C-alpha cells in the first residue's frame, strides 16, 4: 500500500484546498492539459456482477492484475439470504459466483466469498475490516461506493471497463470533479435518522442535483453522527447524481477504525493519524457550490415516487402533478400511476405488504440495534412480511451475540443471511408485483425490488414502525406513546 503522500506545495505558498482536492492531488500520477488526470487508486473492491467481463478483458490482452494485493473481493449481489452454505439453486447466479471464485484464484485476489466469516455487502465489509481509511482513493464497480467517503476517502463507483482499467494499471483516467459543500446544522428531532437527512437533501435538490460534483457533508448535525450514520448519508450521494460524497475524518472516525482487522497498528497507526488529521477543507477553500440546511426542518421522510428525489416529510401530502414544471409532468404522472398514488394524497395509514431492512444503506449493527430497540416487546402486523438482512457475516454474528435475533424472532421479523437481497432483487428476495414495500434501501426505481413492485424508501425506524402497525406510520407518534 501507499505510504501517506506529503501534502502542500513544494516551496511556494500553500494553496487553500478542499478535502477532495487534497486527496485528489495526492493521488495524481500525471496531469496534462486536455486530458483527464491519471489517478492512482489505493483500494479496488470487486464483486461477482460487474467483474467477470473485466477479467475476460485482461485475458484477451494477456495482462495480469497489476496490484492484486490492493484488490479485495466478496460475493454479495447475487447470493441467497437463506441456507447460504448450500449450493446456490439458481443456475446463472451459481455460475456467476463460481466465476468470481475462479477469477480471484487465477489472478491472485483475496476473496471473502460465501461461507467466509468476512463475507458481506462490499460497502459494509470494507469499513468494518479497516480496509476503508481516511485519505484513500477507493473504487468499485458499484455506484454505492460513495459509502466509504464517510471516512474522508475519495470513493466512487465505476463501470466494468474501468474495473478492467484498475485491474491492469491500478489507475483511472478521471477528470477532477467539481466540489459541493452541503452543511446541515442544528439538532435532529426525535425519530429522525441519518437516512431522513439524506432523503431530505435529495428531495430538496432532486435526483440530478449533484451530478458532476463530489459532495462534502459538514455542519454540526453531520459532525455529531456515528460512523454508521455517516455511511448512510455518503451512500446515497449517487442518488442525487454525485459520484462521491465524503465527510472530514475526526475523533469519531479514528475511534471507529482503531483496532480493526486491517487498520494500521503501532507506529503505522501513529504515522497514519498524523496524516489523517490534515484531512479537512481549509477554512478559505473554495467550493463550486454550497448548500445549507437546518436539521430542525427535517422530519421522518418517505418516498412516494419512482426516483429517490420524490420524497417528502411523512406528514406531508404528495405534491400535485400540476405543481411540477410542465415538461416534467408526464414523467411525474407516470411515476404516481406506477405507485398507485394520487395527487395531494397523504400516505399515513396506507397499508404495506413488505418491510425490508437491509442494503448497503442501512444494514449495519447500529441499524439493527435501532430496529431491535424499537420492536422489543412488540409484534409485526399480520399483513406484513418483514425481512432483516444484515450487511455482513460479522454484523449477523454481532446481532446474535447481542441477542437481537431473539427480539426479531419474537416480533415475527425474519433475520436472514448477508447480501444485497431485496434492494435490487437479483436473488430470489423479490417483492411481488403491485405490493408495497417500505424499504431501508436506496432506490425506488420501477421494478427495482421485483417486477412491478412498489418501493417506499425510509429510515430503519420508519420501516420498523410500518412493520409493527401494518400501515405507513409517523414513528414519532409511537415513540411519544412509549415515553408517555
Amino acid at each position: 500500500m501507499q505510504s501517506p503522500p506529503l501534502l502542500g506545495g513544494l516551496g511556494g505558498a500553500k494553496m487553500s484546498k478542499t478535502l477532495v482536492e487534497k486527496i485528489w492531488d495526492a493521488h495524481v500520477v500525471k496531469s496534462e492539459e486536455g486530458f483527464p488526470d491519471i489517478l492512482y487508486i489505493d483500494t479496488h473492491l470487486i464483486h461477482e456482477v460487474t467483474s467477470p467481463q473485466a477479467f475476460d478483458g485482461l485475458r484477451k490482452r494477456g495482462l495480469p492484475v497489476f496490484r492484486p494485493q490492493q484488490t479485495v473481493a466478496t460475493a454479495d449481489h447475487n447470493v441467497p439470504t437463506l441456507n447460504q452454505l448450500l449450493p446456490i439453486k439458481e443456475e446463472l447466479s451459481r455460475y456467476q459466483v463460481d466465476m468470481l471464485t475462479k477469477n480471484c484464484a487465477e489472478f491472485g485476489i483475496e476473496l471473502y466469498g460465501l461461507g467466509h466469516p468476512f463475507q458481506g455487502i462490499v460497502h459494509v465489509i470494507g469499513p468494518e475490516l479497516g480496509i476503508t481509511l481516511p485519505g484513500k482513493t477507493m473504487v468499485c464497480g458499484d455506484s454505492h461506493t460513495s459509502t466509504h467517503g464517510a471516512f474522508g476517502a475519495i470513493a466512487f463507483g465505476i463501470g466494468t471497463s474501468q474495473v478492467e482499467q484498475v485491474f491492469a494499471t491500478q489507475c483511472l483516467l478521471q477528470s477532477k470533479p467539481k466540489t459541493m459543500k452541503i452543511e446541515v446544522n442544528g439538532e435532529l428531532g426525535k425519530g429522525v435518522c441519518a437516512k431522513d437527512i439524506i432523503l431530505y437533501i435529495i428531495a430538496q435538490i432532486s435526483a440530478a442535483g449533484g451530478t458532476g460534483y463530489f459532495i462534502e457533508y459538514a455542519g454540526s448535525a453531520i459532525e455529531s453522527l456515528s460512523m454508521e450514520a455517516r455511511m448512510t448519508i455518503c451512500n446515497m450521494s449517487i442518488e442525487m447524481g454525485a459520484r462521491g460524497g465524503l465527510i472530514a475524518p475526526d475523533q469519531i472516525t479514528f475511534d471507529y477504525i482503531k483496532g480493526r482487522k486491517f487498520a494500521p497498528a503501532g507506529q503505522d497507526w501513529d504515522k497514519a493519524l498524523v496524516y489523517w488529521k490534515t484531512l479537512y477543507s481549509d477554512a478559505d477553500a473554495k467550493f463550486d457550490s454550497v448548500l445549507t440546511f437546518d436539521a430542525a426542518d427535517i422530519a421522518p421522510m418517505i418516498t412516494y415516487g419512482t426516483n429517490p428525489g420524490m420524497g417528502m416529510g411523512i406528514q406531508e401530502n404528495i405534491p400535485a402533478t400540476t405543481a411540477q414544471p410542465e415538461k416534467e409532468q408526464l414523467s411525474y404522472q407516470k411515476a404516481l400511476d406506477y405507485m398507485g398514488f394520487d395527487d395531494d394524497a397523504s400516505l399515513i395509514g396506507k397499508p404495506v405488504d413488505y418491510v425490508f431492512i437491509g442494503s448497503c444503506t442501512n444494514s449495519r449493527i447500529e441499524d439493527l440495534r435501532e430496529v431491535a430497540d424499537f420492536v422489543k416487546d412488540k409484534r409485526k402486523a399480520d399483513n406484513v412480511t418483514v425481512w432483516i438482512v444484515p450487511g455482513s457475516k460479522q454484523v449477523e454474528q454481532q446481532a446474535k451475540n447481542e441477542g437481537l435475533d431473539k427480539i426479531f424472532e419474537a416480533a415475527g421479523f425474519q433475520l436472514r443471511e448477508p447480501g444485497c437481497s431485496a434492494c435490487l432483487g437479483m436473488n430470489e428476495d423479490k417483492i411481488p408485483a403491485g405490493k408495497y414495500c417500505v424499504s431501508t434501501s436506496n432506490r425506488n426505481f420501477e421494478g427495482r425490488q421485483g417486477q412491478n413492485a412498489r418501493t417506499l424508501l425510509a429510515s430503519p425506524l420508519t420501516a420498523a414502525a410500518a412493520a409493527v402497525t401494518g400501515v405507513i406510520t409517523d414513528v414519532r407518534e409511537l415513540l411519544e406513546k412509549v415515553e408517555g
Partner: protein
Amino acid sequence: MKKFTKLTSAVVPLNIENIDTDQIIPARFLKATTREGFGENLFRDWRYNSDNTPKPEFVMNNPTYSGQILVAGKNFGCGSSREHAAWAIQDAGFDVVISSFFADIFKGNALNNGLLPIQVSEDFLKQIFTAVENNPEITLTVDLENQTVAIEGKVLPSGEDLGGAENFEINAYKKSCLINGYDDIDFILAQKDLIEEFEKG
C-alpha cells in the same frame, strides 16, 4: 473499441425523464458473464408484459420508429453503475444517445464502449421530439469531428422546415478515442513507468 465518426439515422424517441439503469436493463438480467446479448432485454419491463408478449404502446415495438439514435429525456442513465446498460443499448443497435442531461457514470461507460452520448440543450431536445412526432421519418446527422447534431429534412407536411442544428461538447481526449477506436487502458499502459515511479513515492 468501436470507432465513431459520422452517422445519419432516423431516431427512436423516448420522452421520459430520469430513465435509470434499472429500466435500461433490470438487475435480473445482469447474471451473464459476457458483454453480448443484453440488447434483447433493453427496457425489458417497458417493452414486454410479464408473459413476454410485446407492449404495443412502447416505442421500440412501434414499427414507425427505427434507427441507430436513441433520444431520451433529461438525467438519462441515473442510478446503478452497471455498464450492462451501455452494452444493452449498443447491442440493440444504437450508436448514439441524445439527452439534455446524462448521469456521470452512464456517460463514462457509454464513451468507454464507443456509444456516443450527446448532451443537447433543453430547447433542442424539445425540437427533436417535436420533429419526430410530426414526421417519424426525419433523420439526425451526428458529426463527431465537427461536434454537431442536425435535424435533416422537411418536418411538416405543409413543407415547413422545423430543422435545426446544435453544437455539442465532448472531452477532446475522449473524442480522439472514439475517432481512432482506442481506449483508456491502451493510453495508461503506455505510461506504466510513471505509475511505478508514483508508487515509490
